[in-house]
């Protein structure tokens, strides 16, 4: 027996077999990040754009710890609180990745944040930046709240994928409103089943990844849940298997939930002589 094959995840011109996207932040060492990436089997990892240090550069670069031949790097606009800043970061990310010859030059994970305490996205600037970046030819993956109406707007503007948050970034609260995700999936994939919806942010444990995939999401992006776990390497494996389990479970089609029990063993042929007492 071999495990049934899955179709690839397609986002614009990109195709991936693994549906887990990781982040590169918060690891205690670059070596650990590299090992976790391998353990997770991710094909995509996201990176941030930041000022190069003018002094005290250690010579150790994130780029030395990413397998640029295997990984597609997804530059993000993390930390941007306006459409304008996000657009600048997206352009700089594209420049950096084209210089490195990585296919990730053509896409961007757009983040336009509304406030630093909740890190919730600003929907208005997110819409504005999406429109702009789509017009500039970017494949735009948009971090957004789990608002079904906003998700429809973003898709209509040309977002290659919408990435609703399960819960606030780094909060580890998992998927707080599965019903909103269900509506988003129905709305966006109803007449366009291949349209990718990826849960971004909020994952705390492996079960959250399975839940997202069982709902019918096309992938999950997570960072803190691995990087800040007590044993990040073990958690990276857990995420990989949870994603596979959730995806298989979704494709396999779960049984409907029923109020009453349904025996798995036949009632006929029992040797028990007594009827139920109640």
């Amino acid at each position, binding site marked *: 027996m071999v495990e049934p094959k899955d179709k690839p995840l397609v986002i614009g011109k990109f195709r991936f077999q693994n549906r887990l996207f*990781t*982040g*590169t*932040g*918060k*690891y*205690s*060492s*670059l070596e650990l*990040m590299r090992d976790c990436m391998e353990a997770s089997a991710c094909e995509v990892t*996201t*990176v*941030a*754009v*930041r*000022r*190069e240090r*003018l002094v005290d550069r*250690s010579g*150790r*670069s*994130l*780029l030395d*710890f990413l397998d640029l031949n295997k990984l597609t*790097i997804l*530059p*993000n606009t*993390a*930390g941007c609180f306006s459409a304008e800043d996000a657009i*600048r970061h997206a*352009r*700089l*990310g594209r*420049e*950096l*990745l084209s*210089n*490195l010859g990585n296919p990730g030059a053509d896409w961007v994970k757009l*983040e336009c*944040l509304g406030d630093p305490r909740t*890190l919730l996205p600003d929907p208005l600037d997110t819409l504005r930046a999406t429109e702009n970046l789509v017009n500039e030819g970017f494949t735009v993956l948009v*971090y957004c709240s789990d608002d079904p109406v906003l998700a429809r707007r973003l898709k209509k503007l040309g977002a290659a994928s919408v990435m609703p948050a399960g819960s606030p*970034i*780094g909060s580890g609260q998992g998927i707080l409103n599965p019903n909103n995700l269900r509506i988003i999936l129905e709305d966006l994939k109803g007449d366009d089943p291949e349209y990718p919806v990826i849960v*971004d*942010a909020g994952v705390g444990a492996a079960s959250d990844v399975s839940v997202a995939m069982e709902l019918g999401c096309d992938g999950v*992006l*997570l*960072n*803190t849940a691995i*990087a800040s776990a007590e044993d990040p390497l073990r958690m990276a494996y857990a995420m990989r298997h949870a994603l596979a389990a959730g995806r298989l479970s979704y494709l396999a089609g779960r049984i409907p939930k029923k109020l009453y029990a349904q025996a798995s063993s036949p009632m006929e042929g029992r040797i028990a002589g007594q009827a139920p007492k109640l």
Partner: protein
Amino acid sequence: MIEVWINGEPRSFPGPLSVGRLIEELGMPANRVAVEVDLLLVPRSEHAGRMIAGGEKVEIVTLVGGGSEGGTCG
């Protein structure tokens, strides 16, 4: 001397100063940085030809660890 702002810090360099020359002076690997002058991206192919004028604001960035507004490592 040319006075310019680099990543928010005032610096002076002997002129004339191109973007390419500036990156060299700072000892940065040209294939691992991207440069913006006064909010506009200067593609690598234009680094040699783009001269920096006094008072211009230069941003030199690279890729760092980050997921969703994550911290950095290394």
